[in-house]
């Protein structure tokens, strides 16, 4: 018994992993079947006829390209802006002494508590005041405040030895140069990690883009693929083709940068990677 137990536990883990992965496999395989084959009874693990027809259909009959451009554009801008705003603010909190510093730090920490879902009403009112409903900026602005990245940057800048800063000051460098040429380059790793999860988060965000973007002009692909039900009927291959297209960038980003994604998620959860 003692001999077979480890083997059983390993087999159980692998089986569980298989079950966990199966829905993803099944979705991709289904999207590659012709629509009439999809509803055949039984478990056809591979398509009888391989078909890209569903993908062609999605590209021809929905605005998915437009949604893709919107998703890519807004997510990229959100990522750049979040990294820029947070790293600068984190640098000031970590390296500069100024009145109100402790208050600013405490306020940012306290804002961890605010659920963004509770703010949908007033964010919408605000974007409406600005005339930004159904625009890229309307999608982007409320997603710019990510207090946790400020805190992570502060912690990383705190760990850099003072000698680097003092040496740079002696060489006559100003704060902007120290930040841009010393502190940021020493933390490209964490910047990459945070940028990847910020991008994934912005790409995946559903609730806010769903509320603010009501036409193809600014609709993101994450929302878009849920808005075509009527056109499609119950065409599973087409629905899943849309889903695969929507998932592709984030799935690939994760598979390419697994270690970075993991690191950034741990940091956001308050665990040093």
């Amino acid at each position, binding site marked *: 018994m003692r001999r077979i137990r480890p083997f059983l536990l390993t087999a159980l883990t692998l089986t569980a992993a298989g079950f966990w992965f199966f829905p993803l496999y099944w979705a991709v395989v289904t999207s590659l079947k012709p629509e009439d084959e999809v509803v055949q009874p039984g478990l056809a693990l591979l398509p009888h006829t391989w078909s890209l027809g569903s993908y062609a259909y999605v590209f021809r009959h929905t605005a998915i390209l437009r949604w893709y451009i919107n998703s890519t554009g807004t997510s990229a801008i959100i990522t750049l802006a979040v990294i820029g705003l947070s790293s600068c603010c984190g640098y000031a909190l970590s390296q500069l002494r100024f009145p109100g510093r402790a208050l600013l730090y405490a306020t940012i920490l306290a804002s961890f508590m605010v659920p963004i879902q509770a703010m949908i009403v*007033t964010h919408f009112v605000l974007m409406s005041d600005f005339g930004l409903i159904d625009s890229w900026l309307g999608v982007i602005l409320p997603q710019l405040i990510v207090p946790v990245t400020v805190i992570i940057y502060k912690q990383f800048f705190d760990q850099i030895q003072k000698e680097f800063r003092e040496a740079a000051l002696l060489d006559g460098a100003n704060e902007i140069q120290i930040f841009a040429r010393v502190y940021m380059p020493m933390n490209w790793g964490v910047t990459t990690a945070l940028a990847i999860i910020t991008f994934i988060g912005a790409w995946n965000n559903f609730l806010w883009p769903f509320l603010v973007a009501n036409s193809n002009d600014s609709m993101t692909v994450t929302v878009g693929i849920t808005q075509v039900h009527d056109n499609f009927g119950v065409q599973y291959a087409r629905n899943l083709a849309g889903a695969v297209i929507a998932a592709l960038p984030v799935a690939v980003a994760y598979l390419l940068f697994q270690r970075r994604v993991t690191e950034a998620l741990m940091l956001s959860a308050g665990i040093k990677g």
Partner: protein
Amino acid sequence: MPAPRRRGQVRDALIFTGPFVAAYLVLFVYPTARMVLMSFTDAPLVGDGGWVGLNNYFRLGRDALFLKSVGHTFYFVALTVVPTTLLGLLIAMGVLRLRGALQRIALAAFFLPYVLPVSVVYRIWEWMLDPQFGIVQYPVRLIIGHPVAMWADPLWAMPSVAFITIWWTNGFNVLLFVAGLRNISQDVLDAAALDGARGSARFRHIVWPLIWPVTALVLTIQLILQLKIFDQIYLMTQGGPFNSTYVVVQYIYRQAFQSNHGGYGATVAVVLFAVIAALSTLQFQAVRARPA
């Protein structure tokens, strides 16, 4: 010398914090304050309303659908938080039994759903659960004798959304537990083995107490996360059937956006805000209590 340096630092600090603070005030502080003010009015979503004092809050206590949605939210929390935490720990222990490439592949299989957008998760499970053609219906038919339209059945709707949520988000918990378990020193485990602690005894007396800080962290993160449930419910059941899966955030959406009751919607939002804020303090404690 120190004096000018300091004045320079204040100017630099303004340059560095200015953009964030400006964005923060406009996009965060102001909307939060406005949400609280709005909750004292009968304003529509966009536009002015009259001051009604605490009336909206009194109304909450008599609002059957609101009270129902609070109940459903806690039901969803009960179905997800503890199960996903324990499952995360179990899977993490299983994954750590594997070595090398096998471990990396298994970890990726468990984690991959987590990076997907909710609408993709919805599309996948809409197909998996389809009452007529869904693959899940084979075992369901085997066990209870007939197919079930899960999202249209008041009994099954919430548990099936909870199940899918666990499938979707559990990878994150696995990750935290894997990191936590790796931190348990091999020396401690070896010493325990020398003392004869094996299997369940080793788990109960060594692993469980040592991993508890991570468990507490995962529990609080999950609790806060699942209280904010909306996306999956909205996509999969729209709160139905017969409002049996109506949840709090969806009620904010309904009042503010569908019924154009901005003031009352803001009131529900303030209540959610207060509950989450209180629980977040707990989370903060859990993180701080964790030995570094």
